């Protein structure tokens, strides 16, 4: 999935402004192969902006982003082929069925027809969408839409997965399934950067956590690192101390 020694994501000194507002300021982080990194921060901390810059949907004002060894600015097509994004609001075509949608996405990523069809069927089955896969997406529930977006992001087995609040709308079994899929992806050598408000999920799922506040990284590391030797402290305690409320 990722070449030996290659890191799925390296963000260096990323800055992004919207008019007079600096959403992300000199942010640096990396996701290593086989690692699930939790991206935490209060509303407006800059998580979505960072994920959208890392996926190419927003252009950085400053800094660089490397996806599995490819620079997003200099080699955008190579870099984009190596990442999958599950946005906070999925980009779907309401009048296509999930099956048709995945076939279209396979063409965008130039996947071999047979392999793409097999992978699509496998993902539809695992995500519990198979029996709805020929229904147009306009009739899907929020959770089914989210599952379709997850299938689209995983279809080309990218070295890097970026997920923005992926558990929104998912019921407990689907949330569990997604967590299993992310662990499998990491075990296969991929990297995952997942933003979430659910601290218990981050605590149990993620190998490392990065806490963002006002567009800057205020803390990062394993849960043990963040606890600083105080085993009784939960991630919630750490988060409230470091990244809880925006200034």
């Amino acid at each position, binding site marked *: 999935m990722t070449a030996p020694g290659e890191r799925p994501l390296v963000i260096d000194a990323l800055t992004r402004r919207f008019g007079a507002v600096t959403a992300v300021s000199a942010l640096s982080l990396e996701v290593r192969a086989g690692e699930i990194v939790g991206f935490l921060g209060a509303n407006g901390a800059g998580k979505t902006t960072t994920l959208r810059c890392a996926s190419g949907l927003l252009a950085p004002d400053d800094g660089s982003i490397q996806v599995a060894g490819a620079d997003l600015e200099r080699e955008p097509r190579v870099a*984009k082929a190596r990442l999958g994004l599950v946005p906070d609001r999925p980009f779907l075509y309401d009048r*296509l069925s999930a099956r048709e949608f995945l*076939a279209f996405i396979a063409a965008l990523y130039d996947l071999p027809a047979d392999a793409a069809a097999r992978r699509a069927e496998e993902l539809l089955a695992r995500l519990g969408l198979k029996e709805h896969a020929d229904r147009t997406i306009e009739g899907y529930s929020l959770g089914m839409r989210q599952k379709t977006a997850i299938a689209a992001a995983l279809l080309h087995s990218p070295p890097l997965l970026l997920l923005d609040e992926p558990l929104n709308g998912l019921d407990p079994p689907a949330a569990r399934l997604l967590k299993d899929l992310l662990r499998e992806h990491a075990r296969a050598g991929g990297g995952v950067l997942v933003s979430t408000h659910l601290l218990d999920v981050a605590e149990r799922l993620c190998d490392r956590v990065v806490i963002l506040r006002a567009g800057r990284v205020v803390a990062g590391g394993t849960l043990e690192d963040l606890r600083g030797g105080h085993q009784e402290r939960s991630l919630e305690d750490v988060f409230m101390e470091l990244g809880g409320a925006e200034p």
Partner: protein
Amino acid sequence: MNLAGVSRARWIDARRAFWRAGRPRRGIAGIVLAVMTAAAASLTLIALFDGLERAGAPAESYARVLGWAFTFAFVLLALGDLLTVVSAAAAAPDLERLLAAPIRPRELLLIKFMETLPRTIGPVVAIALPAALCFVAENGGAHASVIVVALVTLWTAPLALGTALAIPLLRMAPVARLRESIALLATLAFLGGWLANTFWMPRLFASTDVAARLRAIPPLPPWSPATWAADALARPGERGLEALAACIAASVGALVLASGVAERMLARLQPGTTAVIGTTVRGTARRAATLTGAFLRRDMALFSRDWTVLLDLVARLLLWTLLPLAVLPLTPLPPAELVRSMLVTLTLSLGNDIGTRALPLERRSLAWARLSPIGGARWVLERALGVAGLSVVILLAGALIASAALGLPLSVAMNAFAFGLPAAATALGFGLLIGALLGDPDWRDPRAMLGPGGRALSAFVMLSQGAAWVGVSHALGPRPIGPGWLVTLSLGGVFVAWVLLVITARTVERREYAGR
């Protein structure tokens, strides 16, 4: 309910749609468009009333013209209001909150009326008000209060009746389906008015026997608030007073009906209970052999499954193609030139109705152009290939059908088709660019994938370039065009279209997706 507090919040919300942080906002385009339409309507009506005066037409003719102008505004309002009410009542994100709030249904209705005012006042300002003012300027007589009552009737009656009808309908059909159906009806009503205007007006001014033409104006439907509003202004004495009373009764009656329906049914209206289930289609997980094939397959599915867009498109393509026939009695054209003109007006529709919608039709999923590895330029190229392929088929069919109807040989049809190709290329180029620049990804009405400003710009650009192509066709004479000119025009058309596509591609590549 704290009416003052609610009104203040709505007022701030509405004001910010037009002006915020010292800058004009998107909503201002609607005001500009309404003023421009009002100016155009005023000029047309002044010319029409002058024509009537010169022809010594009886007072009845003035009243009928006023009545039909009011009726046109009324029909637009009736269908538009129903659409607006459906959107505001059931699709607005605040409905559940309002239903849960400790307010009475009729108070909720009042809030929704306030909310819909800016979106429903357009036909009154743009059509009915200029008609009333032009009529009074020409004939005098009506008191200002009568004009106000007439205009208020034209606004409240359709809005209240639309509300009374929408609430029960919303309990039966999914919001999306209902909105699509009403949008289509609104399109047909508009096109009907456009068609009548296009065929009738040129003949009226061209005819030497205006009085005979005017006698042919059909009488107004007697039981219509639009007729009563016109009669209140146009009829002297007791008949005018009766019409005025009818206007007031219609407004009050419609409001009482809407209030009663709201009181009985609004509280039981549960958004989402009649959700779209989705259609089962015969899909395949196997990707198309090429990227172009994948785009074509996707586009076919999107277009064919959005039947309101499809029907709207077919209606417009037909009407634009027929437009040159409307002026034929005034400016006789040789058959070959007529076919060329018909194809040029068809290309206006290709640009305005297919080109401008190609990118907004994708809504926010256009983000894949930036997210996927193919890039924005390739995306635009694939979209252009798709709409060009569809347009070539439509243009060829138009050339063959028009030529066959006029009894022209196949060679003339092919010559006209070859002339239409560069016109279509430029129209599609302009259409794609305008759609990329001014498309609304959150469109709800298939007629409004562009905002009001975008639609006005598109109409202006299409008519300008259409006029240029008709001028070229006329300058090249009544016979089929020689191969030298056809090659020159084709190269010119392709060059312009290519430049426009490059700008469109840059626009799509640079578009950012900040989320939410």
